[in-house]
């Protein structure tokens, strides 16, 4: 089982009261409230956290990126990945991920990732995402072609990594008359690609068709099981049997040396007014053309304030009860995580450990306890439950490298 440490890298030094007054804390929330002195301190603290995490036994770092919002300071995950590639030694560097539709030049992205893979000596997992709607708006990229660009950029990047250059690419959204990046990845046939997501079925189906592991981001246990049902069905239709090596799960887990402190810090998971990405207008998160047409009717009602957020805004207590937020000492948390692993059987597990205004000292305590106690215990439980991760299983990095494909009857049950 592969267990990773994750944080959104919160820009906690911002005036939340002003966000509440203007009614939003994303996209259009003015960057005049960004304090680069605090930003400099926080970036360096977060870098130190990863280095410390590796010293404490953490075997994977999950990195992501977002734009125009205090909930996440990391505006380009390849930058932290590059630094960590040089200053750490063993931990996997898992990007979940680069928002492909935002790039105007996927070949350049393929080069950056190849460099990071070589500098890290093959520790890179360059996961890919569509990017939220706000990311499209922040980058000025057309949300209506988000999925088309995601798939075509993916195809081009994989081609740049695996096809001998020079070759020519005449796509719908990308045209390159010479594709011949000098730098190619160290890992062969190419680094593992994982695909995180929350809602859209199209992405789950696409990931299953590629045989890429799907990482459920902070979804409830019930929602996660539904994701696996869909993934498993598509896998069968595609000709393989999905297992733990295809499943990843990210959850919010804060550990501390006392229950009280752990609970106080875990409440920081709701620090952006309980919203994943802060307060935002629904049409920023879901610009027209970005979301699945099947959701259109429900969404427009929500967008004009006539319907509740389809994701809901559960309270802290509700999220704890639903098994979305965990806190405690290693002793109390490990049994809870065992139940999650038993129920959902992922082989990739991201621990979103720290958020909001958790102090540097408490964040380091959390990382130490995760690295020394929680993660080793989870790896043991993983062994016991047969949760073999893609590295241990030597799983094919893409469907096309499968050696076990068979045509399964659709109604196999």
């Amino acid at each position, binding site marked *: 089982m592969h267990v990773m440490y994750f944080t959104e890298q919160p820009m906690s030094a911002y005036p939340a009261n002003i966000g509440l007054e203007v009614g939003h804390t994303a996209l*259009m929330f003015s960057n005049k409230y960004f304090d680069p002195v605090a930003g400099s301190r926080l970036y360096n603290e977060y870098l130190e956290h990863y280095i410390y995490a590796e010293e404490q036994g953490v075997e994977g770092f999950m990195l992501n990126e977002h734009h125009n919002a205090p909930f996440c300071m990391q505006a380009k995950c390849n930058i932290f990945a590059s630094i960590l590639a040089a200053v750490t030694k063993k931990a996997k560097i898992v990007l979940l991920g680069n928002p492909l539709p935002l790039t105007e030049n996927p070949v350049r992205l393929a080069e950056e990732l190849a460099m990071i893979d070589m500098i890290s000596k093959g520790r890179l997992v360059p996961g890919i995402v569509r990017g939220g709607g706000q990311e499209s708006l922040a980058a000025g990229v057309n949300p*209506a072609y988000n999925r088309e660009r995601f798939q075509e950029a993916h195809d081009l990047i994989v081609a740049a990594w695996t096809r001998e250059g020079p070759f020519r690419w005449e796509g719908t959204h990308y045209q390159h008359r010479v594709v011949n990046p000098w730098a190619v990845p160290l890992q062969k046939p190419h680094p593992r690609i994982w695909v995180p997501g929350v809602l859209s079925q199209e992405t789950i189906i696409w990931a299953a068709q590629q045989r890429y592991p799907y990482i459920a981001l902070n979804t409830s246990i019930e929602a996660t099981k539904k994701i696996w049902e869909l993934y498993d069905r598509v896998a069968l239709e595609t000709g393989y049997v999905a297992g733990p090596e295809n499943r990843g799960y990210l959850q919010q887990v804060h550990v501390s040396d006392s229950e009280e402190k752990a609970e106080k810090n875990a409440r920081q998971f709701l620090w952006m007014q309980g919203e994943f990405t802060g307060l935002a*207008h629904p*049409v920023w998160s879901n610009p027209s*053309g970005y979301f699945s047409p099947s959701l259109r009717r429900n*969404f*427009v*009602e929500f*967008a004009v304030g006539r319907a509740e957020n389809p994701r809901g805004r559960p309270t802290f207590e509700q999220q704890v009860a639903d098994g979305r937020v965990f806190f405690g000492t290693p002793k109390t948390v490990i049994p809870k995580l065992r139940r999650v692993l038993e129920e959902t059987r992922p082989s990739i597990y991201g621990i979103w450990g720290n958020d909001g205004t958790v102090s540097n000292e408490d964040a380091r305590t959390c990382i130490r306890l995760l690295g020394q106690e929680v993660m080793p215990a989870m790896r043991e439980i993983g062994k016991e439950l047969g949760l073999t991760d893609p590295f241990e299983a030597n799983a094919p990095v893409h469907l096309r490298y499968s050696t076990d494909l068979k045509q399964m009857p659709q109604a196999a049950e």
Partner: protein
Amino acid sequence: MATGWGERVVELTGAKLHLARAGSGRPVLVLHHDIGSPDRLPFYDALASRFDVLVPHHPGYGKSERPQYLRSVRDVAVIYQSLLAELGIERATLIGLGFGGWIAAEMATMAPREFHRLVLVGAMGLKPPDGDIFDQAIVSYIDYACAGFHDQQAFAKVYGDVTTDQLVEWDLCREMSFRIAWKPYMYNPTLPQLLGGVRAPALVVWGEDDKIVPRSAGERYADLLRNARLEIVRAAGHCVDMEQPEQLARLVGAFIDEN
């Protein structure tokens, strides 16, 4: 008042266009806003009492299916040239409303001698020298539609209590606008140079309180078109056609009749 609107679907250039038509006289092609168009409007009826009025739904808007290939507003302008050819219509007057004004301007540049008159009402298509075209991507569907009106009661008169069907239609319209006019947003940087070739006399109309397209864009249209004048309509926002339909129909009617 005109009655007897006929509706049909015209299939051409890979598009299925919904077309409403009424009246007789000189042909007038009315090109609607980016928020689509209600089926009937007093402005359309007023025109149809004197002219042969054609109101298509833009491809991908309203009742016209989305052609997946469409990538630019010029594509839409070309489709409408084909539509006029298909229907055997010559010397039409183009009336472009807001976003439809951009389409009309593109059509006029493509066939400089073809059109009888060009009427641009709060037209998009040019980068305003002063101010920006309002970005619908950051506001809700209702807020964007409301911003097109000077008087919110006029909005209510046209749209009433906005239904879910209307919201869905606005979302589809918005998606289509993003597909063809995302960047640059709602203008064509080469249009200013090309407008100088247009020979059709042009009337540029702007609502005094247009919050969607700055009036500076109207002034620029009037400057760049070789035979144009600018009229400002009081007590109207961007959607002059819905807010002051009689006044706009009078202005347009007189302009079409001018020698």
